[in-house]
């Protein structure tokens, strides 16, 4: 029976996922195959049933309110205007409003009592936060997420290390190693230039199955935790030969460690 192979195409037909040619082919098959015709009818009926009212739920009103509150209002909060590190700090304002309402109250109380002192204290708090590895991690996850959106993944698309590496050489002061790790299960897909906290970084892009690994590289040997988890993404950090490396991905932590090991052991490192 070849009908088993056709089953998922019957579903695809009901979902409107087939192009004209395949749609015609499957329609013709359904016309002659009672089994597939029954499947098709069932799928269509189920799709209709799943459209009935009462299945889709409404978010509670207080949740909608909390989210509305988290958005910068018509008059932005003073912290949102601090001229530091862009999105990281501006995002903190709503976060704090939502999560730590007490902090705002405290801030209000302080401002009432001590005015300028309180503002200075808040500023110091934010300035201290900027530049921590946590903020770098947040910027890197931002960069990783940006890269996952269509057409942002690479500036140069190639599985050939001899194409990607010279491409960087013409653009940046630093040329990261671009080893071919296909045998280790990491496919080179390209490279791009990204900006991490206002600084240009080379990004070498690999894939593990369907998952993207962005490897950010810039000169310097900053200290940071070897492993960071942020927003469901894993970040692995290491330094080598005067370069700082950050690998960011949603693959599991041991796999990312495996990636680091494979990358560092690769012969491409000298070249």
């Amino acid at each position: 029976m070849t009908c088993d192979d056709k089953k998922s195409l019957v579903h695809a037909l009901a979902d409107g996922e087939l192009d004209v040619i395949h749609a015609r082919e499957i329609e013709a098959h359904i016309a002659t195959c009672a089994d597939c015709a029954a499947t098709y009818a069932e799928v269509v009926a189920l799709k209709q049933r799943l459209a009935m009212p009462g299945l889709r739920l409404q978010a509670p009103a207080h949740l909608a309110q909390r989210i509305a509150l988290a958005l910068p209002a018509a008059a932005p909060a003073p912290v949102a205007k601090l001229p530091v590190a862009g999105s990281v700090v501006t995002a903190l304002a709503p976060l704090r409003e939502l999560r730590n309402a007490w902090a705002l109250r405290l801030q209000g109380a302080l401002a009432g009592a001590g005015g300028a002192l309180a503002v200075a204290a808040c500023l110091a708090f934010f300035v201290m936060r900027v530049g921590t590895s946590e903020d770098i991690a947040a910027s890197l996850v931002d960069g990783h997420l940006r890269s996952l959106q269509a057409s942002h993944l690479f500036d140069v698309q190639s599985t050939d290390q001899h194409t990607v590496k010279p491409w960087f050489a013409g653009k940046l002061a630093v040329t990261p190693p671009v080893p071919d790790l296909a045998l280790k299960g990491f496919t080179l897909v390209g490279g791009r230039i990204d900006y991490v906290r206002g600084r240009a970084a080379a990004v070498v892009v690999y894939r593990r199955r369907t998952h993207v690994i962005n490897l950010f590289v810039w000169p310097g040997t900053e200290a940071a935790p070897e492993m960071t988890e942020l927003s469901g993404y894993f970040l692995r950090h290491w330094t080598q030969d005067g370069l700082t490396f950050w690998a960011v991905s949603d693959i599991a932590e041991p796999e990312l460690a495996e990636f680091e090991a494979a990358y560092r052991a690769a012969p491409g490192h000298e070249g």
Partner: protein
Amino acid sequence: MLEPDQREAERFRTLVVPLLDDVYTFARYLTRDAAEAEDAAQETFLRALRYFSGFSGDQIKPWLFTILRNVLRSRDPRRFEPLPQTKSGEALSVEPLWGEPVASPETNATQSDAALHLRELIGRLPAAYRETLLLKEFNDLSYREIAEVTGVPIGTVMSRLARAREELQAAWFELEKKAKIS
């Protein structure tokens, strides 16, 4: 003149905020817990807000659901692991799915009854099937988008969707049969 922050907030309000019910629904079906779903939805919107300035694509929904999925996974790493296979016919021991009854004025009693049962049955599908079905039927994502959100090849999306529907259909028939007998 609006400040850039305010413009972003406006864009977020127009494009992302209206998807709150969809996000909440998905979280609710996946977590089967009202409080947990609420927390996950809230966290998703906070993250979305934070990453929004970097988002320039036009497909908001897959982007938002990718974040939601990461939130759900980080809150419970085992959430998307395949369930151990149960023998066919054996009742799954499932915690109560829904805290409160569906009371919607515009649906009549029979309809909301059916919806209640169907919700229960969807909630019993293995997580991988459940999420695939929800992304397709409730959110109208394409196979390609579902593949991106769930991080599996399109072929897997197709087979999961087919399995989800088969299981749901079978469970529904079972229910109808019982209803007729009693």
